């Protein structure tokens, strides 16, 4: 699970507002779709306990580079589907922030990053299974792709936002952040990819059960966000109207708002280019 590796107050106010709005937009669209499509008891239970397991697993210290922690967001995304996966990402982030891990003000940004991991992992797994891959290589590869997508999005969010109080030009900040993204990518490939391929083979006693659970997750896990084979729909069974207009409008409004905020701050923020954040 990649995180925005920035503490509270690291982003300027406009970025905090922008990422919060985008996070709220994503979660609103998901909640809307879940409510419209209906949610079954077993999906609620699975989502709640998968989030609890993800949060519990995070407590275990893994002795690599002095100690790393995992959330298995990719696997949770495959199990619960992209809709519930996004909600689980939000819930795990809320609990993490309450325990001082992550940031309260960056809940929107963190949810975007983690939801993207779950969503990408789900579609990658579904595609690879469709191509007749075995479950374990497919899940390891899908989790790796999901984590990589999260790492790139994390880097993009930092570069777009800038760091509060830093006078560093965007180009130099991109170089600094590239190292961080690279480290995350390396961890993703090492953990989800290499480790997944080498240790989660079918020899494990729990392997068959895991495989069944993963495959059932794809079939029942709360509906898809985008069903490519059936045209673009936003989650769940295709309903009359498809709700694409509402979703598109929401994304458009948030996008325009975000760009507007950025342009406003960039032009009328009250700083000249040379003196911008330097103190």
């Amino acid at each position, binding site marked *: 699970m990649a995180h925005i590796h920035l503490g509270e107050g690291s982003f300027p106010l406009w970025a905090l507002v922008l990422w919060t709005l985008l996070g709220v937009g994503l979660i609103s669209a998901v909640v809307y779709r879940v409510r419209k499509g209906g949610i079954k008891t077993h999906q609620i239970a699975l989502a709640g306990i998968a989030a609890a*397991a993800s949060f519990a697993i995070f407590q275990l210290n*893994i002795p690599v580079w002095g100690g790393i922690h995992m959330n298995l967001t990719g696997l949770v995304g495959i199990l619960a589907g992209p809709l519930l996966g996004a909600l689980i990402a939000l819930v795990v982030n809320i609990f993490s922030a309450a325990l001082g891990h992550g940031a309260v003000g960056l809940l929107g940004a963190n949810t975007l990053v983690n939801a993207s991991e779950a969503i990408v992992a789900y579609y990658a797994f579904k595609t690879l299974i469709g191509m007749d891959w075995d479950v374990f290589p497919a899940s390891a590869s899908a989790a790796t792709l999901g984590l990589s997508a999260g790492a790139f999005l994390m880097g993009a969010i930092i570069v777009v936002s800038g760091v509060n109080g830093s006078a560093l030009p965007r180009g130099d900040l991109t170089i600094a952040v590239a190292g961080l993204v690279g480290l995350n990518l390396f961890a993703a490939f090492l953990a989800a990819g290499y480790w997944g391929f080498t240790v989660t083979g079918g020899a494990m006693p729990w392997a068959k059960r*895991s495989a069944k659970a993963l495959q059932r997750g794809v079939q029942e896990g709360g509906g898809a966000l985008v069903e490519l084979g059936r045209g673009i729909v936003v989650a769940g069974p295709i309903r009359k109207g498809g709700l694409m207009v509402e979703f598109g409008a929401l994304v458009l409004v948030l996008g325009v708002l975000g760009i507007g905020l950025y342009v406003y701050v960039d032009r009328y923020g009250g700083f000249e280019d040379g003196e911008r954040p330097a103190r």
Partner: protein
Amino acid sequence: MTVTTLSNHVPDPRLVTAFAEQRDGPLHRVNPWTKIGIVGALVLAVTVFDRLALLAGLYGAVLVVYGLAGLPYRRLAGWYTLPLLFIVSVAGPLTFLEPGTPIGGTLPTPLGELSVTWAGIVLFAELSCRSLTVVTFALTASMTTKYTDVAYMLGRLLPRPIDQIALLTYRFTFVMLETLEDLVKAALSRGANFSEFWSNKRLYARILGMTMLSAIEQSERLVKSMEARGYNGDITLYGDVSRPPIHELFVVIGSYVAVVGYAAVAVYGVRQ
């Protein structure tokens, strides 16, 4: 409550809840809505405050509040590891890259001269104060708010079905932690060694995999239990968190007025 630490730099939710349930400091008696209001004000403050002295003062004040609540400083130092790692991972390179007056000499590299600047050091200190202020207060609030109050507020603040997922997560976090800890203890009793990852990678995979499987099995049992009790999309919450008393309300409103006022006048230069 026995707590076997899985990691000494991540707060154990059971320990946090034990502090909330079994201690009775001044902050335990503060209304939970007030604490949430103060967290919001602090997030806003550390985002807009632009002077190191101010940020350090705010951090110091929060540290004092943490101590007044009767919470342990030694644990806090361990729990700072992850937030500090995040600060170092971003602010570390910026300390070298930030333009400004170099401290000491410069180190020539193929890409240019490398040096730590005063501006870089100040930025590092500012980011640390910003981050640790909210981390400390979030932990203070978590360690002084009872389980039932947290559950009630989750149910009130989050829309359905997120509230249902959050409530189940909160309840089952403790169950899953017990499961994970049992697996770790079982492996240790069979002579496992957790100090090295790569030579024990199968063991780690088995523990993490079994935890996820146990979660799936728990969810299957939970579904039967929920349906037997006539679950209709609503987990009934018992208990109530009243509105904050008037003096606490004034403190919260005063905090926001002070932060917004400072930001408007000192940071954004709003004049009459």
